[in-house]
């Protein structure tokens, strides 16, 4: 077997194996999980380098070619997501190794947290490289089940409530997706994305199928107005779990939507449909930001910020598939690359931010924004990481978020639809407004009479969110390599 193929197979199987072994041998799990995590990061880096140098890696499992077999393909966008996934998961895994504190205080929590995280890791990797719509369904369900379990892991009433609501949304979304899969198979006899290219839209049921799948995926991606499950779920989960849930899980649904609309059904998009999706994205940007401004607790603020940041992603539909794209080819390319920059840099920055929130929660014992005065003296490194992540979310240079906003705004101006660019820019201003509040509170000098007591936190754990925040800046400082891998409109 060729080496890149082995690496791709390992990125899919190693997390699942790790999950099983860490359930079977919980005492040795710590060493094992640490080793597996480091190997996984190495594999992701190696695969990214290989794809950047010599093109996509394709496997037809068991030498069965589509339509009967299932094809896996690691192309440019797929390896970028695999790499970011590996970085975020590794940081979260190391973050939760601490024997006591937020996650570790209860042994049962540790024993369930690691296998669930590894399971989620494997499921997300499987989604990123799948080329078969039914295989994507299985990946989606695996990811949802692990994610829901992570939300309810602490067995508190509020988090169980949030987990149940999340589960109902996620399951209904998956069923809508499955309904679309059934209709497509009945009409075309294949579910391979490559074989479906150019075929969709020829049968009357195709519009219904794509509509059902898009609605289902939008519900799972927390697109406005299906976002209601997200803030309680992401704010109620333990901070390391929230980091993964907010950074990566909604993006997998968005990623499948991209594969569906841009690769399986290019040209089947109606002008009205893409504008409706784009408007929902714009509403999400405004609504999520305004709600984030009004939250009294840091974790809720960050969760509402996710609602807003996911909104930007859906602006790709009117920009790259609507009338704007017909103006010139570079518009669609800029929209595509800008959206991927947004997805990747938001993943890194949001994971960093939730880990910072976790550290603040450990130091202060609460996350109420108005009682964080004086925090900067105790956790300077954490607040530095928070600030760097905030730069990416606001879209200031030099950061991945800046690349994203620059490309999206230039696409909207070049395509003659400046309204979408205006949404992106005003979203940036609102982001600045809501992220200013926790920063200002933490930098405020505390009143000596009623000074809050903060516990110190180890430096190596503070370094983990800092690393993620620096990675999100690096996307903007060295955008050449990721830009090349994204490759413009497929």
């Amino acid at each position: 077997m060729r080496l890149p193929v082995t690496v791709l197979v390992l990125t899919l199987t190693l997390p699942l194996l790790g999950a099983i072994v860490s359930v079977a041998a919980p005492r040795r799990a710590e060493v094992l999980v640490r080793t597996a995590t480091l190997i996984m990061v190495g594999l992701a880096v190696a695969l990214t380098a290989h794809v950047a140098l010599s093109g996509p890696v394709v496997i037809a499992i068991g030498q069965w070619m589509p339509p009967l077999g299932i094809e896996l393909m690691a192309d440019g966008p797929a390896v970028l997501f695999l790499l970011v996934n590996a970085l975020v998961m590794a940081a979260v895994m190391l973050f939760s190794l601490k024997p006591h504190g937020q996650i570790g205080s209860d042994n049962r929590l540790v024993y369930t947290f690691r296998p669930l995280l590894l399971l989620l890791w494997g499921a997300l990797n499987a989604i990123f490289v799948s080329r078969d719509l039914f295989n994507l369904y299985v990946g989606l369900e695996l990811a949802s089940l692990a994610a829901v379990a992570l939300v309810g892991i602490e067995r508190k009433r509020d988090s169980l409530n949030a987990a149940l609501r999340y589960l109902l949304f996620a399951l209904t979304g998956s069923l809508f997706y499955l309904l679309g899969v059934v209709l497509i198979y009945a009409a075309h006899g294949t579910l391979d994305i490559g074989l479906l290219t150019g075929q969709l839209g020829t049968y009357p049921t195709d519009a219904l199928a794509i509509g059902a799948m898009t609605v289902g995926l939008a519900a799972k991606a927390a697109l406005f107005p299906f976002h209601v499950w997200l803030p309680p779920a992401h704010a109620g989960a333990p901070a390391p779990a929230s980091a993964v849930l907010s950074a990566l899980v909604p993006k997998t649904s968005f990623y499948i939507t991209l594969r569906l609309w841009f690769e399986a059904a290019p040209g089947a998009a109606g002008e009205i449909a893409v504008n409706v999706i784009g408007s929902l994205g714009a509403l999400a940007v405004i609504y999520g930001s305004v709600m984030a401004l009004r939250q009294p607790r840091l974790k809720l603020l960050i969760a509402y910020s996710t609602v807003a940041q996911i909104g930007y992603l859906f602006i790709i539909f009117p920009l790259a598939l609507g009338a704007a794209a017909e103006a010139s080819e570079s518009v669609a390319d800029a929209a595509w690359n800008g959206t991927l920059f947004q997805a990747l840099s938001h993943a890194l920055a949001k994971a960093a931010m939730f880990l910072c929130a976790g550290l603040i929660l450990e130091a202060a014992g609460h996350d109420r924004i108005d009682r964080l005065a004086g925090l900067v003296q105790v956790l300077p490194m954490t607040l530095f990481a928070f600030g760097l992540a905030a730069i990416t979310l606001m879209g200031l240079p030099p950061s991945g978020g800046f690349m994203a906003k620059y490309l999206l705004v230039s696409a909207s101006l070049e395509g003659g639809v400046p309204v979408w660019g205006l949404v992106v820019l005003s979203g940036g201003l609102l982001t600045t407004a809501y992220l200013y509040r926790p920063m200002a509170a933490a930098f405020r000098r505390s009143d000596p009479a009623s000074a809050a007591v903060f516990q110190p936190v180890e430096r190596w754990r503070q370094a983990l969110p800092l690393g993620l925040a620096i990675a999100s800046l690096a996307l903007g400082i060295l955008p050449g390599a990721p830009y090349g891998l994204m490759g413009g409109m497929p």
Partner: protein
Amino acid sequence: MTPVEWLPFAICATALIGLGLYGLITQPLLLRRIIAFNMIGSGIFLLFGALSASETAGTDPVPQAMIITGIVVALSATALALGLAVAHAREGGRDP
């Protein structure tokens, strides 16, 4: 199969999906919502079986494999939902 043979299945499947969706939206009780979710799932699997019957080549085995996979996925989702519902009730939570 001719349309006369597969059409009754398709109609039943559509009815199941519709009933399940109605239940999912209107029923406030968790357990009923979980049952409604299973009804939608069953309806989709039945639809899959009915629509994949071809008039010339007999029955296509691929959808059957997918239906079995889908049933396993739906079963595990139901198990998780029930587990969460039980834990939720133990903590004294009310139906969301």
